C-alpha cells in the first residue's frame, strides 16, 4: 500500500513500464523480448526482433516485479519460462551465447544497419551479451534450483573464463572484437556472481580481477576519468556505457568483498564527478568526452536511469543523502519522457544520438529497476524516522 505521493508516482510509472515489457515478450510468443518498438522503423509490426542480451537481464526485473505486483505474476511467469527456454536453445557449443537479435535459429542481426540493409549473420560468440544472459539465468537458477540451468551456466562460466586473455583483455566478442572496452566491467561482474553461486573457482576470480584491474589502471588519477568507456573502446562515451562501467565496478566490488575496495573507490570517485556536473546543471549530458567534458545536445534516458541506480548504491555505501536526492531528480526527468503505454525513449529528444527514434526495452528495464530501488530507499528514509 503506497503511503506517500512519491510512492504512488513511482508505482504507477513502474507498473506501466512492466506492462510495456510484457507486451515486448507477448509479440514474440513469449520467446524473448523485442529490442525496441518503433513505428518508423517497423511500420507494420511496430517491434524489432527479440534481443537475447536484454531479454537475459530483463529476467531479474520480472522476478522483482512478480514479488511486488501479484496481479501481473502470471504474465511474468510466461515471459520468464518462454524466454529461458528460448535462450538455452541458442547456447553455443563453447558455452557462449550469440550477439545480436535473433532472426531464426543460428541467424542474427547485430545492429540497426543490418535492419536497414537486410543483412543477416551467423551466430557469433559475444562475451558481453553472454554475461547479460547469465544475469537472467543466475536469477532463474536462484528461484528454481533447476539442475539443467546449473549445467548450462557452468558451461558459460568456462567460456567466459577462457575469453579473458593475458593482461585481462577480453577478446571474444561479436561487437567489440579485440577492443576490450572498459564498459565490459558490466560483463565481468556477473561472472563473479555466477562463480559465487556455483562455487568459487580461483582461476575465474584471478582472471576477472585481472580484467577489472586493467580497466581501473587506465584512468586519470586527477579526474577519475576511466578511459575506453565508449562503444568500441573509445574515450567518448554515452552515459549508458559510462554507467555500465561504473555499475560493473560497484557490483564486482560487492561480489569480491573487502578485496574489491579498489574497484569501489574508482567507481565512487568517478560518480562524485558526475554527481557534481549533474547537480550544477540540474541534468546529465547524453555523453562524456575525455575527462568528463559533457556533450549536452541530448539526454541518454537509459544512462540516466543506470547512473541513478549507481547513485543509490553510493548512498547505501556512504549514507550521503545528496546522492539519494540526485537520484530522485534523475527519476523524475526520465519519468517525464515515459510514454503513456510505459515505453521510454533511447534519447531525449527522441532524435538524439543514442537509439534515435526507438524505444528500447533496456531503457524500460533500467527505469523499472531504478523505480523499485528508489521507492524502497525513500520509503525506508521516511519510515526510519517515524
Amino acid at each position, binding site marked *: 500500500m503506497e503511503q506517500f505521493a512519491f510512492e504512488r508516482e513511482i508505482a504507477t510509472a513502474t507498473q506501466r513500464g512492466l506492462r510495456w515489457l510484457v507486451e515486448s515478450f507477448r509479440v514474440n510468443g513469449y520467446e524473448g523480448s523485442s529490442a525496441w518498438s518503433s513505428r518508423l522503423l517497423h511500420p507494420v509490426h511496430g517491434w524489432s526482433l527479440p534481443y537475447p542480451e536484454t531479454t537475459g537481464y530483463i529476467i531479474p526485473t520480472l522476478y522483482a516485479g512478480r514479488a511486488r505486483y501479484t496481479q501481473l505474476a502470471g504474465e511474468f511467469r510466461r515471459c520468464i519460462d518462454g524466454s529461458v527456454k528460448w535462450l538455452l536453445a541458442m547456447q553455443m557449443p563453447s558455452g557462449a551465447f550469440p550477439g545480436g537479435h535473433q532472426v531464426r535459429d543460428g541467424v542474427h542481426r547485430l545492429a540497426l544497419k543490418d535492419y536497414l540493409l537486410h543483412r543477416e549473420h551467423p551466430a557469433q560468440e559475444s562475451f558481453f551479451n553472454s554475461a547479460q544472459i547469465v544475469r537472467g539465468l543466475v536469477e532463474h537458477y536462484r528461484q528454481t534450483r533447476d539442475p539443467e540451468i546449473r549445467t548450462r551456466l557452468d558451461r558459460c562460466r568456462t567460456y567466459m573464463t577462457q575469453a579473458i586473455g593475458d593482461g585481462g583483455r577480453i577478446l571474444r566478442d561479436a561487437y567489440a572484437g579485440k577492443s576490450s572496452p572498459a564498459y565490459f566491467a558490466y560483463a565481468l561482474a556477473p561472472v563473479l556472481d555466477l562463480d559465487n553461486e556455483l562455487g568459487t573457482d580461483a582461476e575465474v576470480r584471478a582472471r576477472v580481477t585481472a580484467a577489472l584491474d586493467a580497466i581501473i589502471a587506465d584512468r586519470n588519477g586527477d579526474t577519475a576519468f576511466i578511459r575506453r568507456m565508449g562503444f568500441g573502446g573509445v574515450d567518448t562515451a554515452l552515459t549508458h556505457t559510462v554507467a555500465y562501467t561504473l555499475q560493473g565496478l560497484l557490483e564486482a566490488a560487492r561480489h569480491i568483498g573487502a578485496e574489491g575496495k579498489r574497484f569501489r573507490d574508482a567507481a565512487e570517485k568517478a560518480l562524485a564527478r558526475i554527481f557534481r556536473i549533474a547537480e550544477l546543471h540540474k541534468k546529465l549530458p547524453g555523453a562524456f568526452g575525455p575527462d568528463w567534458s559533457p556533450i549536452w545536445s541530448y539526454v541518454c534516458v537509459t544512462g540516466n536511469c543506470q547512473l541513478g541506480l549507481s547513485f543509490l548504491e553510493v548512498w547505501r555505501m556512504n549514507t550521503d543523502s*545528496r546522492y539519494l536526492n540526485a537520484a*530522485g531528480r534523475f527519476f523524475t526527468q526520465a519519468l517525464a519522457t515515459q510514454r503513456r503505454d510505459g515505453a521510454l525513449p533511447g534519447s531525449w529528444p527522441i532524435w538524439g544520438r543514442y537509439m534515435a527514434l526507438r524505444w528500447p526495452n533496456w531503457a524500460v528495464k533500467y527505469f523499472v529497476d531504478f523505480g523499485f530501488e528508489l521507492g524502497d530507499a525513500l520509503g525506508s528514509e521516511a519510515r526510519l524516522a517515524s
Partner: protein
Amino acid sequence: MSGYVVTCSHSRSAHAAAFISAACARNQPPAGVLVVNPLNIHQLREQMRRHGARRLFEKVLAAASARFRPHASSDDGQPLLRWLEERQLPREFDIRGLCKRHGIPYYSVPNLNSDRTIGVVTRHAFRYAVYLGGGILREQFISAFSGPVLNAHQGPLPEIRGMGAIAWSLYLGLEPSVTLHGIDAGIDTGPIYEIRPVPRRPGMGIDELNAESVNLGLDMLLDAVDAMEKGGLQAKTPSGTPGSQYFSMHDYLREVLEYRIGRRSSG
C-alpha cells in the same frame, strides 16, 4: 572610502528593498545599489540553465506583472510583510523608486562580475558590500572591495554549504541557522562572523522556516552594517572543516522531510 554597496538580482527584489528601507530607517543607508538587469543574454542563459524554460517564463511573467503593481514584488510573501510591519517600514519594493526617494545612487549592471560593475565599484571606492542576490560572484568582484562582501547564508556553516541549506540542516538533524559570512572565491567557504538559530514555532514547515531564515538574515545583515560602521566584524574560528556542498532538495526528499518533521500526515 564611501561606505557600502548593496547588490540585488533585479529591481523588485523584495528582500533587498526591505533591507534598504530598514538601513535608511537606521540612518545607515548604502552608498550605492547594484541591480542586475535580468533582461540580458547572460542572465537569461544562466536562468534557463538553472530553472529550465518553463520556470524562466513564469519568472519573466511575474516580473512583468509586478511592473504594473507599484507596491508588489515578484517574490514577496507574508513573513516579509510581517517583518516590515513590525519595523513600521513601508511596503515598497520598487528599488529604483526607493533609491530615488532616499538619494541613493542606483546602478543597473548586466552582471556583477562585468568590467562595468567593477568600474563602478572602484570609481566610487565602496568599502564593503552587502550581498542580497545577483548570481555567483567571481574573484574580480570580491577583491574590488577593501572590506568583506557580506552574505547571510540560510544554513549552518561550515557544515551545510550551497543551496536549500535550511531543508538540508533539518534533514541531517542540525539546528536550522543563519550564518553571516564573507563571500570568497569558494562556495560558502569565507570567514564566518556570526551564527544565529532560526526561531521555530510548533507546526512550522520547510517553507515557513525558509521565510523566517530570510528575515533573520536581514536582521543579521543590518546588525553587521552597524558593526562595520562602528569598527568592523570579527571572524570566528570555524568549528570544523568545510562540509559538503548541497544542492536544491528534490520534491521526493522534501516529502520525506515534511513527513519527518510531522507536517504531513500519512495516507
